[in-house]
């Protein structure tokens, strides 16, 4: 069963705390992504990972970092969270042979609230 799994589903943190969002996929996909979704802005790309330890900034990387030590696992880290990082975060993966745009498979999202 092809799946992208995100944990946790809901998270409330205080400003200044560290946040770790986890994502896993069981499809052996090379490429993984972190997006955030805000009202009126659609999905904005934070980071893209082409494979283990091969990460690249997306359009809004500031305030975030990522870690990919295994192909099936991609983490998003917020060091010292800010209130403007309150959002819904989606992880996605794609097969991506040759770094071309392909179908994305999304996780169910993590709704993060930073107080």
């Amino acid at each position, binding site marked *: 069963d092809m799946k*992208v799994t995100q944990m946790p589903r809901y998270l409330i943190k205080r400003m200044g705390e560290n946040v770790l969002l986890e994502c896993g996929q069981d499809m052996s996909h090379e490429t993984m992504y972190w997006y955030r979704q805000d009202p*009126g802005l659609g*999905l904005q790309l934070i980071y*893209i990972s082409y494979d283990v330890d091969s990460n690249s900034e997306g359009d809004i990387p500031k305030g975030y970092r990522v870690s990919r030590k295994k192909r099936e696992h991609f983490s998003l880290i917020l060091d010292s969270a800010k209130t403007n990082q309150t959002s819904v975060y989606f992880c996605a993966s794609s097969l991506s042979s040759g770094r*071309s*745009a392909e179908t994305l498979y*999304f996780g169910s999202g993590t709704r993060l609230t930073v107080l």
Partner: protein
Amino acid sequence: GQQVKQSSPSLTVQEGGILILNCDYENDMFDYFAWYKKYPDNSPTLLISVRSNVDKREDGRFTVFLNKSGKHFSLHITASQPEDTAVYLCAAGENQGGSAKLIFGEGTKLTVSS
């Protein structure tokens, strides 16, 4: 600036009607175009996609039309049903020798009334 733009934040149509969702893009290098569908509190899922070597692709009630010279693509839905009520996100990216990066529009919230 926004590389991929959807002009209508929301749209309402009667059940059975035909509707058109529009998307404009800026980057000439984009040659992969897609529409994703998202229900509330759910993840986006691919509805239909097209590569730039064709200007139309049909899948049941859903058709994508691509106008490369106008940097515009659209999603046509026929015989609309209440279960089509969702947010529709257009997306574009580079297919050949480019990046796996997919850029999304802001989304159009579609309501199909019965």
